[in-house]
């Protein structure tokens, strides 16, 4: 029982990272009808920005702010350089452009930093606290706390503010939104900035748990992508539930079945969903959107 609680905590912690990246996938997909294959690289770039700032001797909080500001800027550049010139084309050229951007980002970091994985210290000096039988790692606590705050913020932003409603309207019918005077290009810009910051936040939070490496982005992105399919593609709640579920499943799988096959469990679940329930957990709601 103690082990189950412990695994549940760790699983939710890592699942929260997938959920944040998955949320970025879904928001961009809804706004542009395109899967952004560079979403994982957002996490990787942010983690490296953190490493650079910390090595430079800046305080941790300042590095954090700079890294997130850098991600916001990357969101702007990404929108203008990758999506905007192709916005009137079909989804295919845009998807290829995001793949190209992802290769460009990882190779740029590789050229600057080399292939050696980097280590990023955690935010807290205390490694964790013992709560009864469960040891709560401070970094996982931070990840879970930030994710809860972000999910609440996301709900408030999209459901309670006029700007959130305009973003939703834009994602549902761009032409109609423009007829009402909503600036579609501004809404898409906001979406890219927000998604880049979400992805970056996930990367920064998970960096002390994993190594900071060129490949970390694609690993996280694959899991997050699986999470969006499990949750129901295009569904915000689905992305969060799918991400958490995936984190828990792979943690339990690693503990009870096989550690080397840890990454495999996520994709086994993905395949099972694709075969038996391709619309995902919240599938019906996606259909309603159409």
């Amino acid at each position, binding site marked *: 029982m103690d082990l189950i609680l412990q695994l549940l905590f760790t699983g939710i912690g890592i699942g929260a990272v997938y959920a944040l990246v998955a949320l970025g996938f879904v928001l961009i997909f809804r706004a542009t009808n395109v899967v952004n294959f560079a979403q994982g690289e957002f996490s990787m770039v942010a983690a490296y920005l953190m490493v650079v700032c910390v090595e430079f001797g800046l305080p941790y909080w300042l590095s954090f702010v700079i890294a997130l500001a850098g991600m916001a800027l990357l969101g702007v550049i990404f929108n203008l350089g990758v999506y905007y010139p192709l916005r009137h084309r079909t989804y295919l050229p845009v998807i290829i452009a995001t793949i190209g951007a992802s290769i460009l980002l990882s190779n740029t970091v590789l050229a600057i930093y080399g292939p050696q994985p980097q280590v990023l210290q955690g935010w807290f000096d205390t490694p964790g606290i013992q709560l009864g039988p469960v040891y709560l790692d401070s970094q996982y606590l931070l990840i879970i706390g930030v994710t809860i705050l972000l999910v609440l913020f996301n709900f408030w932003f999209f459901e309670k*503010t*006029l700007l959130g*409603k*305009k973003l*939703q*309207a834009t994602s*549902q*019918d761009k*032409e*109609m*939104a*423009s*007829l*009402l*005077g*909503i*600036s*579609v290009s501004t809404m898409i810009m906001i979406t890219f900035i927000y998604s880049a910051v979400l992805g970056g936040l996930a990367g920064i939070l998970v960096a002390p748990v994993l190594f900071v490496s060129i490949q970390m982005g694609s690993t996280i992105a694959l899991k997050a992508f699986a999470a969006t399919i499990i949750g129901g593609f295009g569904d915000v709640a689905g992305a969060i539930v799918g991400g958490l579920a995936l984190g828990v499943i792979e943690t339990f799988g690693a503990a009870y079945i096989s550690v080397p096959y840890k990454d495999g469990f996520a994709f086994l679940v993905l395949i099972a969903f694709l075969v038996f329930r391709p619309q995902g957990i919240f599938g019906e709601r996606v259909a*309603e*959107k159409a």
Partner: protein
Amino acid sequence: MPLLEIRNLVVRYGEIEALRGVTIAVEQGQVVTLLGANGAGKSTTLRAISGLAKPTSGDILFDGHSIAGLGPEAIVRLGISHVPEGRRVFPGLTVKENIMLGASNRKVGASQISREADAMFDLFPDIRAFSNALGWTLSGGQLQMVAVARGLMAKPRLLLLDEPSLGLAPVIVQAVFRIISQIRKDTTVLLVEQNARMGLSVADHGFVLETGRIVLGGKPDELWGNEAIAAAYLGGHAKTHA
């Protein structure tokens, strides 16, 4: 000076010439109805006015100034509100949210917009009960009411209505047209209709479009009086009511 003046407007979609030199004028305070068969260019005319379709040549003057080539976001800010074919109510937003977004062309705060949206239900009492229902749950007639209410939230000087009767039961069509005759007290309306009888019943002036050209224009009585034209376009045949 007319509120809206279209001069020799040509619109091409690739090889296809959808409008081949359309000239019409809409005076302030009028309801003008644009009639014609499917594919005659009625919707394209409205899309060119609201900025969704780029004119190939010709000019569109609103209040004396050319708006040809401006984007839809800029044109709705000038006071032209387009309620497009198919209603286009956002399916994942509630009725009230849809109506509130109609004010996106104006610089007003959210609480003010919320009050105005509530007031809009006085004009559309049939949808008041569905204020918090999501768009996709509504019937065709309710969607049309939401679409018109949303269009009016822009406080337009000119309202473009594309086929508001399409696919609606006769009793609902009558309700929609009752609303149009109420709207006209404050707003100039350019109405596109296949349903000639209903379309002309509220109009001060009518135009008939045929394959991208205006073939006839005049007061509703004159249009009804022209026998050949009345038989061909205005009919009373079942198909014009489809």
